């Protein structure tokens, strides 16, 4: 079944979530990937939103805000941000989805400014809950498009911690042990992180070459044994399109 690269990206992200776990999620691709996982391979996945909603069911429309009423649709609790951030800090958040404008080889993220801080070329919204999710959840999954301006050796601003300067740096800074970026999912493939905390390519989508991946990054892409991520199944794609019937998320790419 033919699909767009954005759809492939969302499907690949959804496959990363193990059933019976919790995921802190955001609007757009993250919530779509989380709902898709729930509707396919992870029916007991609990979705949590930072404004306070815990474990909602599939809403009549995709949320536009991580605090809107769709996030609390048939939820088990409409709690508060304090509640959600506390549960993450206490170790109850298995996964968190994050997006970013820039990422560096250690999985550090920028969502604050492009250009110099004092006189930015683009002022972005800032951390929001990203720094919190990236600091406190066990496995952070970054969901972003890659190109040479987004995959950069040096960030313009380090908003959210990845492995900072390498494995061990998070713990030295005081961030909880055993947390950090786990996967990066782009329109080309899926990355993990090596022993030293640097990103490495794990999988590419059908039809994507290593050259294309390397040409879409400003830092060197490490790659060992790269496997091919299977195309979306008919069921995955059907479910995805039912979840986003207007192409609000997937239709933009």
């Amino acid at each position, binding site marked *: 079944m033919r699909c767009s690269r954005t759809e492939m990206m969302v499907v690949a992200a959804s496959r990363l979530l193990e059933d019976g776990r919790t995921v802190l999620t955001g*609007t*757009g691709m993250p919530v779509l990937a989380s709902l898709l996982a729930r509707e396919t391979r992870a029916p007991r996945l609990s979705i949590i*939103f*930072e*404004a*306070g*909603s815990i474990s909602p069911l599939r*809403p*009549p*429309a995709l949320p*536009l*805000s*991580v*605090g*809107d*009423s769709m*996030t*609390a649709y048939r939820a088990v609790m*409409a*709690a*508060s*941000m*304090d509640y959600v*951030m506390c549960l993450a*800090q206490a170790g109850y958040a298995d996964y968190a989805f994050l997006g970013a404008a820039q990422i560096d080889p250690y999985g*550090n993220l920028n969502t*604050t400014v492009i250009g110099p*801080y004092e*006189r*930015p*070329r*683009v*002022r*972005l*919204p*800032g*951390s*929001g*809950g*990203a*720094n*919190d999710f990236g*600091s*406190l959840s066990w496995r952070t999954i970054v969901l972003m498009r890659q190109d040479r301006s987004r995959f950069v050796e040096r960030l313009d*601003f*380090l*908003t*959210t*911690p990845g492995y*900072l300067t390498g494995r061990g*740096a*998070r713990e030295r*800074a*005081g*961030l909880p042990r055993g947390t950090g970026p786990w996967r990066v999912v782009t329109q080309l493939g899926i990355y993990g992180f090596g022993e030293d905390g640097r990103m490495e390519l794990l999988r590419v989508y059908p039809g994507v070459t290593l050259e294309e991946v390397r040409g879409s990054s400003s830092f060197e892409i490490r790659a060992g044994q790269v496997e091919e991520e299977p195309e979306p199944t008919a069921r995955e794609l059907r479910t995805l399109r039912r979840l986003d019937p*207007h*192409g*609000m998320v997937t*239709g*933009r790419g």
Partner: protein
Amino acid sequence: MEVLEEGRGKLLGWCDPWEHREWVRRNKTREMVEKVTTLREAVSRFVRDGCLMAFGGFGHVRVSMAFIYEVIRQGKRGLKVAGKTAVHDLDCLIAAGCVEEVEVAYSFGHELRGLSPASRRAVEGGRVKVVAELSNAAYQWRFKAAAAGLPFMPAYVMLGTDTLRRSSAKVVRDPFTGRPICLLPACFPDVAVIHVHECDVYGNCRIEGALVEDSELARAAKRLVVTTERIVPTERIRREPWRTVIPYLYVDAVVEVPYGSHPCNMPGRYYFDEEHLAEYLSLTRTEEGTREYFERYVYGVEDFEEYLRRVGGKRKLRRLQELERGRGTFSYPWRKGG
């Protein structure tokens, strides 16, 4: 405790907790008295040029737009705003020229709708200054410290990042574990404005849906104005006291404003007015369009009721109520090509 690192962001809303206690003793009424007033009166009484304001809800969910329009109408200037997930609330105030400084957790964006053109122009052009950065959890815990009457709240966030370096937080060595931990200074906003589903004339409030950080914010602010979809009898509050999320103690004024969050989402009542938000986002691309928007919807109307008629009246509001129940056609007119 050994201080390991200090952010260089401006410390907004700070007050020594002992001084705050004494201020509370002198200034806050502990008696249950009627506090019902009008928008005009509440704004002119509590919002002073240059004060630090924080808005309840979540930027474009359950925010008090009626109050914000009145702030704009009264031409308040030099405001400092807590960008604690600030979306349409802050963007309107910036577009109308009311804001001078923002402390940013999340600001200048409309979540899925993209970046806010008016805010970007103001910040990138230097008219509005970002004085500090922090995270969402950090902001809410700044309010939590203030609510508890304490100088700071410790947390495992922001560590190791530029967000911390641009914040007003400090990193110290925790005397219990010996590890670095971030201390978030208490924030006592001058005025908080929270829109609720219902409250009584004294300000005992009920909120439906996610509470976001309103429980903490209500208790952190020096002055609290509550706008409400409707005023209910105290008898109703007393029958189910466990549903009260803000008691009268913290509340300084109550204003009844049905649909007071339009064009934003009021959980359980009405959905986003995406057509109106698209019109706003499109007009605020230029200075001229921004003036046109405020002329049409704020300066050019007498009050919030006239505003509601102008945005489509009963018919529009009924449609937004239907959408909130999951009925009708959802549309996203701001979407590229859609």
